[in-house]
């Protein structure tokens, strides 16, 4: 890892925060899609 200088903590926290929010966004996006797809499928299975 490169030396990030005296303000390394600010840089690391900024990147970590963005990584966490972005991952949460992606996971929630996929989970909601799967949930709705399963809802539609269960209705279609019932006829």
């Amino acid at each position: 890892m490169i030396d990030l200088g005296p303000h390394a903590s600010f840089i690391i926290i900024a990147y970590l925060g963005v990584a966490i929010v972005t991952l949460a966004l992606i996971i929630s996006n996929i989970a909601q899609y799967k949930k709705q797809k399963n809802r539609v499928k269960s209705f279609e299975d019932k006829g």
Partner: protein
Amino acid sequence: MTQKIDPLKKMNWFDRIAHPGQFLKWSRYLILPLAILSVILFGVGLWFAFFNSPEDYQMGDTVRIMYIHVPNAWLSQLVYVTMAVSAIGTLVWRHPLADVAMKAAAPLGAAFTTMALFTGALWGRPTWGTYWEWDGRMTATLILLLMYLGIIALWRSFDDQLRAAKLIAIIVLVGTINIPIIKFSVDWWNTLHQPSIVSSEGLSMPASIYTPLLIMMLAFTTLFALLQTNAMRTEILRRKADRQLRKSLNKENG
């Protein structure tokens, strides 16, 4: 003898690709390419950001926060413009996909705006000596976040999504006034924010810093396209499931 009529045959090409059922069919082919492109762009962008870009002569290494701050700030506004275009589609053309796009974009806009404010605060402390300043751009961006949250709350408070769409479309269009305020506030008022990096005199930063910034902006924009497409597909499926639920409840109640 009855003849089966295909409603899609009567539609023009635009209506056909924008029909919710058709959108579900063709948009599935976008998901994987957009996901692969996002991963590649983030990989290259992060490599440039940490291993192939110099520190700034004034800001030092904190300039690396810019590679995530500026893309999120850009998206906070781009998502709102997407919502405003969708709002016009809802009000003027009553397009079935327009309000789906408007609803799908709001949580993404809120997330990108939160990240822009968060990274901006962390960049501001070592650079300006403060996490927050009530200047034009930061205040207008905070207002943008509150607008996103209000719009999300409004969508959730309505059972009838088509009625909600019309009201929210008007609110979104009124709120569009905030976007030029965010963009031009650095020119209109005294502020700690630096002016735009692109002007009539060209770029105000070296290519070694502009390259990772551009790649990260492309990466985040591709990610937005991916998440927006999937969120629109989710919303179409949600409405389809809700319709089926209402039908089955009506059947049960005779």
